[in-house]
């Protein structure tokens, strides 16, 4: 595997079985994601973007095919090892914010560290620093329902960054926001990512312009995957 590859997926197929009806959400997908760059996964609704993101985030398992994160073959990992991998190497940002409703903003940001078993003082300091970076230091002790959509998403970005992940996965992170906040969120993600690989699922081509690399899906198959995004957009 090449050094500059963060993630490699080989012949991925995902078939959902819904009350006997089989849905082929992904059909023999092979692609790689370059390291330390921003990759956008685009395609029409129902083309399998979220399914793909869940598979490479190890939230779900493929029906067949393999996913390598770095040089790790994730199909060989136990549930516990997968949990550790998600905790230490991956940061998630979802469309519907996915903050824990019973925890304050800062507690939400801390959550990956809390799960890891980091002590309260240490993780609190880190979380507050990150909240400052996303411009929310004054909202640290507010609960999610007291925050606007954009603020919730910024909290989620801070949370995705706290473990210094190698890969940040975002599924329609701007989908519930207006155009202006959407671009702000993307800019924030790109500015703060440091040495992380970012994969963003979006159906908004305007948002996809922030990316250096594009993977385009249609009907569960790769329609296009390469670095020359300008040709596509």
């Amino acid at each position, binding site marked *: 595997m090449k050094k500059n590859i963060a993630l490699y997926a080989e012949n991925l197929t995902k078939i959902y079985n819904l009350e006997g009806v089989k849905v082929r959400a992904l059909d023999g997908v092979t692609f790689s994601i370059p390291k330390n760059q921003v990759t956008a996964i685009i395609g029409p609704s129902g083309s399998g973007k979220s399914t793909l993101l869940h598979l490479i*985030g190890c939230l779900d398992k493929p029906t067949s095919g393999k996913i390598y994160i770095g040089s790790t073959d994730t199909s060989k990992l136990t549930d516990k090892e997968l949990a550790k991998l998600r*905790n230490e190497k991956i940061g*998630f940002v979802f469309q519907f914010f996915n903050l824990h409703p019973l925890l304050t903003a800062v507690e939400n940001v801390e959550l990956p560290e809390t799960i*890891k078993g980091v002590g309260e003082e240490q993780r609190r300091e880190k979380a507050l620093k990150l909240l400052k970076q996303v411009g929310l230091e004054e909202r640290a002790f507010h609960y999610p329902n007291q925050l606007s959509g954009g603020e919730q998403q910024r909290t989620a970005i801070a949370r995705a960054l706290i473990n210094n992940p190698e890969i940040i996965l975002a599924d329609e992170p701007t989908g519930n926001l207006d155009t202006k906040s959407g671009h702000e969120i993307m800019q924030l993600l790109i500015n703060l990512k440091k040495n992380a690989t970012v994969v963003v699922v979006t159906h908004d081509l305007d948002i996809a312009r922030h990316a250096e690399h594009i993977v385009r899906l249609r009907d569960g198959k790769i329609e296009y995957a390469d670095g020359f995004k300008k040709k596509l957009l």
Partner: protein
Amino acid sequence: MRFKDSLKFALHNLTTRGLRSWLTIIGVIMGVAAIVAIVSVGQGMQQVISSQLGALGSDQVYVLPGGSISSNIMSGLGAKAPGELTDKDLKVIESVEGVIVAAPDIIGMETVSFMGDSNKFYIWGTNEQWVKVREASVSMESGRFLSEGDRGVAVLGYEAAKETFDKEVSLGSQIKIGNESYKVIGIMNSIGGLGGAQEDKAVFLSLEDAEKYSGVFGIDNYYAIEIKVEQERVEEIAEKIKEKLMNARHVTEDKIDFSVYTPKMIVSVVSSVLTTINLFLYGIAAISLIVGAVGIANTMFTSVTERTRQIGILKALGMTNKDVMNLFLVESALIGLVGGILGIFFGFLISGIIGQVASVFLASSRVGGVSMVYVSPELILFSLAFSVVIGIISGIFPARRAASLEPVEALRYE
């Protein structure tokens, strides 16, 4: 994840669900309170009874009015049993071969005051024969026991004289029973026994004096007749007493209106009655605990469903199945613990009320110096441990359900 953080999470979840958590906890409280109350009353009862049985001599036979155990128990509680025992019966008993000596008992309860201080006491009416029946266990510390024809005099049990009033009662003092004065002519040595004997707490009067304080009992209706018999033939002599009394009272076996007990019989009757009562009560307590456990399981299942999305977030962020499981187990254990603590408290309260009610009926909840209600430290520890275990057990299935959720399914859940 650190235990401290799991605990914080669990507490958070419990307090957020406020009322519903409390309703679940109430289920546990009822179960634990039932157990604590029942066991403490049961243990108290056992102590009272063993202390009373401890005072029985092995060469003694008792005759009580009433032909059945239930009528004997009722008469013990002050109700009138069918068929009185009188001096006539005493004479019959004395004539039975093997009987050494016999004495009548009438028992009541009255306030006794001494130098401005008052206490409730057993008032025990009997005659001069009583010390002979009780020869093996009773002796005088000072003075003498009642003699024939004594009136207006009292003999005190050891505790009654030495340990009940602010000042010790000495020989020759005047005590007041109800509104009448009595001169103390004797003080007995302590009989002791497990928890102290009721004789130690009693005031002994002549039958004629005691009659004023003894309710339905009196010289024409004894509470009991105590008999000392030849030690080697207790059962045989008891049988003879029964036959002679039946003849004298003109009753047949199936219409018998009195009972003859030997110590052996009393022990076996009492313990079999106690065992039956306890089994029944424990059954009720166990059922209420099971109901409490089902309540916990139900709440936890609901809570897993409601929190599916949160579980999804936690798993996406790397929480292991084991940690998710622990989160729910800690929560259900907490429900058990809080329910246990409050249950013990209410159990105390209930057993206290039972003690009070009993004291109204029996005029004293401390029968013979032993509390009717006994809450042991072991019982508290056991109940606490038990309620936590119940909490954990009823949390296992919901917690497993939560742990087995696929992260992606949990995230999709709306």
